[in-house]
């Protein structure tokens, strides 16, 4: 699955939708979907989404790069990473 790495320029959270906008090293922006009108949502997913927002906020405040994984041709994030495993 494709990975985009960039800095966070925006986090937008509604109760039934969440978006983030990243800017890569070439200056290209892309809006990604954190969640969007899920018909059903589990407690686990709520916690995961909350954790994503926390990581994005941390990255945005400190100017740190994040990596998002998403399906090919699809803007929905499946996982999000701040920092790298050493």
């Amino acid at each position: 699955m494709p990975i985009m790495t960039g800095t966070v320029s925006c986090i937008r959270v509604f109760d039934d939708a969440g978006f983030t906008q990243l800017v890569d090293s070439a200056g290209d922006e892309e809006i990604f979907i954190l969640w969007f009108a899920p018909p059903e949502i589990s407690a686990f997913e709520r916690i995961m989404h909350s954790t994503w927002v926390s990581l994005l906020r941390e990255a945005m405040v400190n100017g740190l790069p994040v990596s998002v994984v998403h399906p090919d041709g699809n803007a929905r994030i499946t996982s999000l990473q701040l920092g790298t495993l050493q």
Partner: protein
Amino acid sequence: MGSAVSPELAARVHGDRVLAGFLSPLPRLAEREEADLGQTFERFGQLASRSRLTARVVFQVRAADGTDPRPWSLELTPGACQVSAGAAHRPDLTVLVGEATWRQLAASTVSPLEAFATGELRVRGNVRLASQLVELVRGE
């Protein structure tokens, strides 16, 4: 495709200066949903040519059979838009879209936000330009 955007969410997105531009469908770009893709981009370019924008936009249209995406390029200059099949060097904006989703957009049956919500539409580059382009094509 059913509407992925509830009225409540649409009302909230309406206040977002970038996302609000994607709420309404494009005008019909072809008489039939199965029209030649080139015709839809020609029409899109024709409508976009009413602007004073200078921009290079590439649409990467992905077929359902998984073959390589087909690129279409729009070269916007004030009062004109040149449309060609093929990629462009260093586009200001790249739109990645599935063919079925593009046909629905061109038939005015889904809005760009609905297409984006399904995940079948990605916009890379100057996101504000995407919003401006959509508004232009709608004649706003």
